[in-house]
Protein backbone atom coordinates (compact mmCIF):
# COMPACT_ATOMS: atom_id res chain seq x y z
CA UNK A 1 0.00 0.00 0.00
CA UNK A 2 1.66 3.20 -1.10
CA UNK A 3 0.92 6.48 0.55
CA UNK A 4 1.18 10.05 -0.60
CA UNK A 5 1.06 11.28 2.92
CA UNK A 6 4.12 11.56 5.08
CA UNK A 7 3.60 9.52 8.24
CA UNK A 8 3.14 11.34 11.53
CA UNK A 9 5.09 8.69 13.38
CA UNK A 10 8.56 10.26 13.01
CA UNK A 11 7.13 13.53 14.36
CA UNK A 12 5.52 11.84 17.33
CA UNK A 13 8.75 10.01 18.09
CA UNK A 14 10.74 13.24 18.13
CA UNK A 15 8.41 15.81 19.65
CA UNK A 16 6.56 13.53 22.05
CA UNK A 17 9.50 11.31 22.94
CA UNK A 18 9.43 11.82 26.70
CA UNK A 19 5.69 11.34 27.32
CA UNK A 20 5.68 8.37 24.93
CA UNK A 21 8.60 6.82 26.80
CA UNK A 22 6.89 7.31 30.15
CA UNK A 23 3.70 5.69 28.90
CA UNK A 24 5.58 2.81 27.38
CA UNK A 25 7.59 2.09 30.51
CA UNK A 26 4.45 2.23 32.61
CA UNK A 27 2.73 -0.22 30.25
CA UNK A 28 5.67 -2.63 30.53
CA UNK A 29 5.91 -2.40 34.30
CA UNK A 30 2.19 -3.00 34.62
CA UNK A 31 2.24 -5.98 32.32
CA UNK A 32 1.89 -9.38 33.89
CA UNK A 33 4.41 -10.80 31.41
CA UNK A 34 7.23 -8.65 32.70
CA UNK A 35 9.93 -10.82 34.21
CA UNK A 36 10.74 -8.75 37.27
CA UNK A 37 12.94 -11.60 38.44
CA UNK A 38 15.14 -11.29 35.38
CA UNK A 39 15.31 -7.56 34.70
CA UNK A 40 15.34 -4.54 36.98
CA UNK A 41 13.15 -1.53 36.28
CA UNK A 42 16.29 0.59 35.93
CA UNK A 43 17.58 -1.62 33.15
CA UNK A 44 14.15 -1.64 31.54
CA UNK A 45 14.02 2.15 31.55
CA UNK A 46 17.48 2.38 30.08
CA UNK A 47 16.75 -0.13 27.30
CA UNK A 48 13.43 1.51 26.46
CA UNK A 49 14.93 4.99 26.36
CA UNK A 50 17.76 3.91 24.11
CA UNK A 51 15.44 2.07 21.76
CA UNK A 52 13.13 5.04 21.39
CA UNK A 53 16.05 7.37 20.64
CA UNK A 54 17.40 5.02 17.99
CA UNK A 55 13.91 4.54 16.55
CA UNK A 56 13.44 8.29 16.38
CA UNK A 57 16.70 8.70 14.44
CA UNK A 58 15.98 5.85 12.06
CA UNK A 59 12.51 7.07 11.18
CA UNK A 60 13.67 10.66 10.70
CA UNK A 61 14.43 9.91 7.04
CA UNK A 62 10.79 9.03 6.48
CA UNK A 63 11.50 5.41 5.58
CA UNK A 64 9.45 3.30 7.96
CA UNK A 65 8.92 0.19 5.91
CA UNK A 66 12.22 -0.93 4.41
CA UNK A 67 14.42 -2.14 7.26
CA UNK A 68 17.29 -3.14 4.99
CA UNK A 69 18.62 0.36 4.47
CA UNK A 70 21.71 1.66 6.32
CA UNK A 71 19.72 4.02 8.60
CA UNK A 72 18.15 1.01 10.30
CA UNK A 73 21.45 -0.67 11.17
CA UNK A 74 21.85 1.04 14.59
CA UNK A 75 18.35 -0.09 15.62
CA UNK A 76 18.98 -3.65 14.46
CA UNK A 77 22.37 -3.78 16.16
CA UNK A 78 20.76 -2.60 19.40
CA UNK A 79 17.96 -5.18 19.13
CA UNK A 80 20.50 -7.93 18.38
CA UNK A 81 22.35 -6.97 21.54
CA UNK A 82 19.15 -6.98 23.61
CA UNK A 83 18.09 -10.36 22.18
CA UNK A 84 21.44 -11.87 22.94
CA UNK A 85 21.56 -10.69 26.53
CA UNK A 86 17.89 -11.60 27.17
CA UNK A 87 18.58 -15.07 25.73
CA UNK A 88 21.50 -15.45 28.10
CA UNK A 89 19.40 -14.23 31.04
CA UNK A 90 16.73 -16.85 30.39
CA UNK A 91 13.92 -14.89 28.74
CA UNK A 92 11.67 -16.63 26.22
CA UNK A 93 11.52 -15.32 22.64
CA UNK A 94 7.96 -14.09 23.27
CA UNK A 95 8.97 -12.14 26.35
CA UNK A 96 11.76 -10.52 24.38
CA UNK A 97 9.58 -9.62 21.41
CA UNK A 98 6.92 -8.23 23.75
CA UNK A 99 9.40 -5.49 24.60
CA UNK A 100 8.73 -4.13 21.10
CA UNK A 101 5.05 -5.02 20.79
CA UNK A 102 4.20 -3.26 24.03
CA UNK A 103 5.11 0.03 22.35
CA UNK A 104 2.09 -0.25 20.08
CA UNK A 105 -0.57 0.89 22.50
CA UNK A 106 1.15 4.09 23.73
CA UNK A 107 2.09 4.93 20.13
CA UNK A 108 -1.40 4.34 18.81
CA UNK A 109 -2.90 6.42 21.62
CA UNK A 110 -0.74 9.33 20.46
CA UNK A 111 -1.62 8.71 16.80
CA UNK A 112 -5.30 8.87 17.68
CA UNK A 113 -4.78 12.27 19.29
CA UNK A 114 -2.81 13.56 16.29
CA UNK A 115 -5.23 12.31 13.63
CA UNK A 116 -8.39 13.39 15.38
CA UNK A 117 -11.39 12.85 13.11
CA UNK A 118 -9.41 11.86 10.03
CA UNK A 119 -10.23 8.13 10.12
CA UNK A 120 -8.57 7.22 6.85
CA UNK A 121 -5.32 8.89 7.95
CA UNK A 122 -5.59 7.08 11.26
CA UNK A 123 -6.11 3.72 9.57
CA UNK A 124 -3.07 4.28 7.42
CA UNK A 125 -0.90 5.31 10.39
CA UNK A 126 -2.03 2.27 12.35
CA UNK A 127 -1.07 0.07 9.43
CA UNK A 128 2.38 1.64 9.13
CA UNK A 129 2.97 1.58 12.87
CA UNK A 130 1.89 -2.01 13.35
CA UNK A 131 3.87 -3.22 10.33
CA UNK A 132 7.00 -1.49 11.57
CA UNK A 133 6.75 -2.77 15.14
CA UNK A 134 5.80 -6.28 13.99
CA UNK A 135 8.91 -6.44 11.83
CA UNK A 136 11.14 -5.18 14.61
CA UNK A 137 9.54 -7.64 17.03
CA UNK A 138 10.08 -10.52 14.62
CA UNK A 139 13.65 -9.44 14.03
CA UNK A 140 14.20 -9.55 17.77
CA UNK A 141 12.73 -13.05 17.94
CA UNK A 142 14.89 -14.25 15.05
CA UNK A 143 18.15 -13.01 16.54
CA UNK A 144 17.05 -14.39 19.92
CA UNK A 145 16.63 -17.84 18.40
CA UNK A 146 19.92 -17.78 16.57
CA UNK A 147 21.83 -16.64 19.64
CA UNK A 148 20.08 -19.36 21.66
CA UNK A 149 21.33 -21.84 19.08
CA UNK A 150 24.83 -20.44 19.52
CA UNK A 151 24.61 -20.89 23.29
CA UNK A 152 23.37 -24.45 22.90
CA UNK A 153 26.11 -25.23 20.40
CA UNK A 154 28.71 -23.83 22.75
CA UNK A 155 27.37 -25.90 25.63
CA UNK A 156 27.32 -29.00 23.45
CA UNK A 157 30.88 -28.31 22.41
CA UNK A 158 31.97 -28.02 26.01
CA UNK A 159 30.14 -31.23 26.95
CA UNK A 160 31.79 -32.88 23.99
CA UNK A 161 35.24 -32.00 25.20
CA UNK A 162 34.45 -33.50 28.59
CA UNK A 163 32.79 -36.64 27.28
CA UNK A 164 35.30 -37.69 24.67
CA UNK A 165 38.75 -37.32 26.13
CA UNK A 166 41.73 -38.60 24.22
CA UNK A 167 43.70 -40.96 26.45
CA UNK A 168 47.39 -41.83 26.29
CA UNK A 169 47.52 -45.62 26.61
CA UNK A 170 51.26 -45.83 26.29
CA UNK A 171 53.99 -43.53 25.21
CA UNK A 172 53.19 -42.89 21.57
CA UNK A 173 49.79 -44.62 21.60
CA UNK A 174 46.57 -42.62 21.95
CA UNK A 175 43.09 -44.03 22.44
CA UNK A 176 39.80 -42.32 21.71
CA UNK A 177 36.90 -44.31 23.17
CA UNK A 178 33.74 -42.96 21.55
CA UNK A 179 30.51 -43.36 23.47
CA UNK A 180 26.96 -42.72 22.40
CA UNK A 181 25.38 -41.66 19.16
CA UNK A 182 27.64 -39.80 16.81
CA UNK A 183 26.29 -37.06 14.62
CA UNK A 184 28.21 -35.41 11.84
CA UNK A 185 29.23 -32.22 13.60
CA UNK A 186 30.15 -33.94 16.85
CA UNK A 187 32.30 -36.44 15.00
CA UNK A 188 34.08 -33.64 13.15
CA UNK A 189 34.96 -31.80 16.36
CA UNK A 190 36.14 -34.95 18.08
CA UNK A 191 38.29 -35.97 15.12
CA UNK A 192 39.92 -32.55 14.86
CA UNK A 193 40.71 -32.77 18.55
CA UNK A 194 42.31 -36.20 18.06
CA UNK A 195 44.54 -34.94 15.25
CA UNK A 196 45.68 -31.99 17.35
CA UNK A 197 46.48 -34.32 20.25
CA UNK A 198 48.52 -36.50 17.91
CA UNK A 199 50.65 -33.44 17.12
CA UNK A 200 50.83 -32.24 20.72
CA UNK A 201 51.96 -35.62 22.07
CA UNK A 202 53.91 -36.75 18.97
CA UNK A 203 52.04 -40.05 19.09
CA UNK A 204 52.43 -42.26 16.05
CA UNK A 205 49.46 -44.47 16.85
CA UNK A 206 45.84 -43.64 17.65
CA UNK A 207 43.17 -46.22 18.38
CA UNK A 208 39.62 -45.04 17.71
CA UNK A 209 37.33 -47.37 19.62
CA UNK A 210 33.67 -47.45 18.62
CA UNK A 211 32.51 -50.27 20.89
CA UNK A 212 30.22 -47.82 22.68
CA UNK A 213 28.62 -46.51 19.51
CA UNK A 214 25.33 -48.22 18.67
CA UNK A 215 25.01 -47.12 15.04
CA UNK A 216 27.27 -45.55 12.47
CA UNK A 217 25.79 -43.89 9.39
CA UNK A 218 27.58 -43.14 6.11
CA UNK A 219 28.43 -39.59 7.06
CA UNK A 220 30.05 -40.61 10.33
CA UNK A 221 31.88 -43.48 8.63
CA UNK A 222 33.23 -41.01 6.09
CA UNK A 223 34.45 -38.68 8.82
CA UNK A 224 36.24 -41.60 10.47
CA UNK A 225 37.91 -42.58 7.22
CA UNK A 226 38.88 -38.97 6.50
CA UNK A 227 40.44 -38.72 9.94
CA UNK A 228 42.46 -41.87 9.32
CA UNK A 229 43.63 -40.43 5.99
CA UNK A 230 44.53 -37.09 7.58
CA UNK A 231 46.46 -38.80 10.38
CA UNK A 232 48.44 -40.78 7.81
CA UNK A 233 49.39 -37.57 6.01
CA UNK A 234 50.63 -36.23 9.32
CA UNK A 235 52.72 -39.33 9.95
CA UNK A 236 50.54 -41.28 12.36
CA UNK A 237 48.50 -44.44 12.00
CA UNK A 238 44.89 -44.78 13.15
CA UNK A 239 43.40 -48.12 14.03
CA UNK A 240 39.66 -48.48 14.34
CA UNK A 241 38.54 -50.98 16.95
CA UNK A 242 35.23 -52.22 18.30
CA UNK A 243 33.46 -52.68 15.00
CA UNK A 244 30.55 -54.95 15.82
CA UNK A 245 29.15 -57.36 13.23
CA UNK A 246 26.02 -55.21 12.79
CA UNK A 247 28.08 -52.12 12.04
CA UNK A 248 30.31 -54.09 9.67
CA UNK A 249 27.19 -55.25 7.82
CA UNK A 250 25.78 -51.73 7.61
CA UNK A 251 29.08 -50.47 6.24
CA UNK A 252 29.06 -53.10 3.51
CA UNK A 253 25.45 -52.31 2.62
CA UNK A 254 26.20 -48.60 2.45
CA UNK A 255 29.18 -49.29 0.24
CA UNK A 256 31.69 -47.73 2.61
CA UNK A 257 35.10 -49.12 1.80
CA UNK A 258 37.53 -49.37 4.66
CA UNK A 259 40.27 -50.18 2.19
CA UNK A 260 43.60 -50.53 3.85
CA UNK A 261 42.57 -49.04 7.16
CA UNK A 262 43.50 -51.38 9.98
CA UNK A 263 40.47 -52.48 11.97
CA UNK A 264 40.29 -54.70 15.03
CA UNK A 265 37.38 -56.25 16.89
CA UNK A 266 38.42 -54.93 20.29
CA UNK A 267 40.58 -52.24 21.81
CA UNK A 268 42.73 -54.99 23.36
CA UNK A 269 43.40 -56.43 19.91
CA UNK A 270 44.26 -52.99 18.61
CA UNK A 271 46.71 -52.43 21.44
CA UNK A 272 48.28 -55.83 20.82
CA UNK A 273 48.68 -54.98 17.14
CA UNK A 274 50.21 -51.61 17.93
CA UNK A 275 52.76 -53.08 20.36
CA UNK A 276 53.79 -55.50 17.63
CA UNK A 277 54.25 -52.64 15.15
CA UNK A 278 56.39 -50.82 17.68
CA UNK A 279 58.43 -53.89 18.50
CA UNK A 280 57.22 -53.92 22.09
CA UNK A 281 56.67 -57.23 23.87
CA UNK A 282 55.02 -57.80 27.22
CA UNK A 283 56.49 -60.55 29.38
CA UNK A 284 55.37 -62.10 32.60
CA UNK A 285 57.97 -62.03 35.35
CA UNK A 286 59.51 -65.42 35.95
CA UNK A 287 59.36 -66.56 39.58
Amino acid at each position, binding site marked *: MTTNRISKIPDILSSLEKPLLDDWIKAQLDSFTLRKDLISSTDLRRDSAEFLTLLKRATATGNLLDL*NTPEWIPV*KDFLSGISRSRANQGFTPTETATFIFSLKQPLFARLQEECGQDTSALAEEFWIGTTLLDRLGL*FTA*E*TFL*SSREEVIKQQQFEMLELSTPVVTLWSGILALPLIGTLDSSRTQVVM*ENLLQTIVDTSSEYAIIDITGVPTVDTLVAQHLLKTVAAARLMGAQCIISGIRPQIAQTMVHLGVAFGDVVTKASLADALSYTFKQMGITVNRKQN
Partner: protein
Amino acid sequence: MTINILRSETIPLRTDEDVVRARRIVRDWTISMKFSLVDQTKLVTAVSELARNTVDHGGGGSALLEMLDDTIRRGIRLTFEDQGPGIPDIVLAMTDGYSSRGSLGLGLGGTKRLVNEFNLFSEPGKGTRVTIARWK
Protein backbone atom coordinates in the same frame (compact mmCIF):
# COMPACT_ATOMS: atom_id res chain seq x y z
CA MET B 1 16.68 -12.56 2.97
CA THR B 2 18.91 -9.62 2.15
CA ILE B 3 22.62 -9.90 2.10
CA ASN B 4 24.59 -6.85 3.14
CA ILE B 5 28.08 -6.31 1.85
CA LEU B 6 30.18 -5.00 4.69
CA ARG B 7 33.47 -4.76 2.87
CA SER B 8 34.80 -5.38 -0.59
CA GLU B 9 38.14 -5.44 -2.34
CA THR B 10 39.35 -6.37 -5.82
CA ILE B 11 42.64 -8.19 -6.26
CA PRO B 12 44.43 -8.45 -9.60
CA LEU B 13 45.48 -11.98 -10.55
CA ARG B 14 48.19 -11.80 -13.15
CA THR B 15 51.32 -13.21 -11.57
CA ASP B 16 52.55 -15.86 -9.16
CA GLU B 17 52.94 -13.23 -6.47
CA ASP B 18 49.30 -12.22 -6.90
CA VAL B 19 48.27 -15.77 -5.97
CA VAL B 20 50.34 -15.57 -2.78
CA ARG B 21 48.86 -12.15 -2.02
CA ALA B 22 45.32 -13.45 -2.54
CA ARG B 23 45.98 -16.23 -0.02
CA ARG B 24 47.34 -13.76 2.50
CA ILE B 25 44.44 -11.32 2.19
CA VAL B 26 41.82 -14.04 2.53
CA ARG B 27 43.67 -15.47 5.52
CA ASP B 28 43.63 -12.05 7.17
CA TRP B 29 39.90 -11.65 6.51
CA THR B 30 39.05 -15.10 7.91
CA ILE B 31 41.13 -14.45 11.00
CA SER B 32 39.42 -11.13 11.65
CA MET B 33 36.04 -12.81 11.23
CA LYS B 34 37.09 -15.51 13.69
CA PHE B 35 36.63 -18.51 11.42
CA SER B 36 37.92 -21.78 12.91
CA LEU B 37 41.43 -22.75 11.83
CA VAL B 38 40.16 -25.63 9.71
CA ASP B 39 37.60 -23.41 7.95
CA GLN B 40 40.27 -20.74 7.37
CA THR B 41 42.58 -23.30 5.80
CA LYS B 42 39.86 -24.75 3.60
CA LEU B 43 38.89 -21.35 2.20
CA VAL B 44 42.47 -20.14 1.68
CA THR B 45 43.28 -23.41 -0.12
CA ALA B 46 40.22 -23.03 -2.36
CA VAL B 47 41.29 -19.46 -3.13
CA SER B 48 44.77 -20.67 -4.00
CA GLU B 49 43.39 -23.23 -6.45
CA LEU B 50 41.05 -20.79 -8.18
CA ALA B 51 43.51 -17.90 -8.21
CA ARG B 52 46.10 -20.11 -9.81
CA ASN B 53 43.61 -21.29 -12.44
CA THR B 54 42.86 -17.68 -13.29
CA VAL B 55 46.55 -16.88 -13.72
CA ASP B 56 47.65 -20.09 -15.44
CA HIS B 57 44.63 -21.04 -17.55
CA GLY B 58 42.60 -17.86 -17.77
CA GLY B 59 45.34 -15.61 -19.03
CA GLY B 60 45.10 -13.50 -15.92
CA GLY B 61 42.13 -11.75 -14.39
CA SER B 62 40.95 -10.58 -11.02
CA ALA B 63 39.12 -11.62 -7.87
CA LEU B 64 36.43 -9.68 -6.05
CA LEU B 65 36.33 -10.26 -2.31
CA GLU B 66 33.20 -9.45 -0.34
CA MET B 67 32.47 -9.70 3.37
CA LEU B 68 28.80 -10.59 3.75
CA ASP B 69 26.20 -10.33 6.50
CA ASP B 70 22.70 -11.76 6.11
CA THR B 71 21.71 -10.51 9.60
CA ILE B 72 22.08 -13.98 11.07
CA ARG B 73 25.64 -14.88 10.14
CA ARG B 74 28.71 -13.56 8.38
CA GLY B 75 30.53 -14.96 5.38
CA ILE B 76 33.07 -14.31 2.66
CA ARG B 77 32.32 -14.43 -1.04
CA LEU B 78 34.93 -14.47 -3.79
CA THR B 79 34.36 -14.06 -7.48
CA PHE B 80 37.18 -15.04 -9.81
CA GLU B 81 36.92 -13.66 -13.31
CA ASP B 82 38.99 -13.92 -16.47
CA GLN B 83 38.54 -13.34 -20.19
CA GLY B 84 40.49 -16.45 -21.11
CA PRO B 85 39.72 -19.40 -23.35
CA GLY B 86 36.99 -20.73 -21.04
CA ILE B 87 36.36 -24.31 -19.99
CA PRO B 88 35.24 -26.52 -22.87
CA ASP B 89 33.92 -29.40 -20.77
CA ILE B 90 32.62 -28.27 -17.39
CA VAL B 91 31.47 -31.73 -16.30
CA LEU B 92 34.95 -33.08 -16.89
CA ALA B 93 36.51 -30.13 -15.10
CA MET B 94 34.39 -30.83 -12.03
CA THR B 95 35.33 -34.52 -11.93
CA ASP B 96 37.77 -35.73 -9.35
CA GLY B 97 40.89 -36.91 -11.02
CA TYR B 98 44.49 -36.08 -10.76
CA SER B 99 46.06 -35.18 -14.05
CA SER B 100 49.77 -35.78 -13.84
CA ARG B 101 50.22 -33.79 -17.02
CA GLY B 102 48.75 -30.90 -15.11
CA SER B 103 46.62 -29.59 -17.95
CA LEU B 104 43.66 -28.61 -15.84
CA GLY B 105 45.24 -29.99 -12.72
CA LEU B 106 43.02 -31.29 -9.99
CA GLY B 107 39.32 -31.36 -10.82
CA LEU B 108 37.36 -28.40 -9.49
CA GLY B 109 35.15 -30.86 -7.62
CA GLY B 110 37.73 -30.94 -4.86
CA THR B 111 37.68 -27.17 -4.49
CA LYS B 112 33.88 -27.28 -4.37
CA ARG B 113 34.04 -29.51 -1.30
CA LEU B 114 36.06 -26.89 0.56
CA VAL B 115 33.37 -24.21 0.39
CA ASN B 116 29.67 -23.80 1.17
CA GLU B 117 28.68 -22.24 -2.16
CA PHE B 118 30.20 -22.80 -5.57
CA ASN B 119 29.09 -21.40 -8.93
CA LEU B 120 30.86 -21.75 -12.23
CA PHE B 121 30.06 -19.94 -15.43
CA SER B 122 32.24 -20.38 -18.48
CA GLU B 123 31.90 -19.77 -22.19
CA PRO B 124 34.60 -21.07 -24.53
CA GLY B 125 36.30 -18.10 -26.13
CA LYS B 126 34.77 -15.60 -23.74
CA GLY B 127 36.02 -16.36 -20.28
CA THR B 128 35.26 -17.90 -16.91
CA ARG B 129 33.68 -16.72 -13.70
CA VAL B 130 33.78 -18.77 -10.51
CA THR B 131 32.01 -17.62 -7.36
CA ILE B 132 32.59 -19.28 -4.00
CA ALA B 133 31.39 -18.48 -0.51
CA ARG B 134 32.14 -19.73 2.97
CA TRP B 135 29.86 -18.90 5.90
CA LYS B 136 30.71 -18.91 9.57
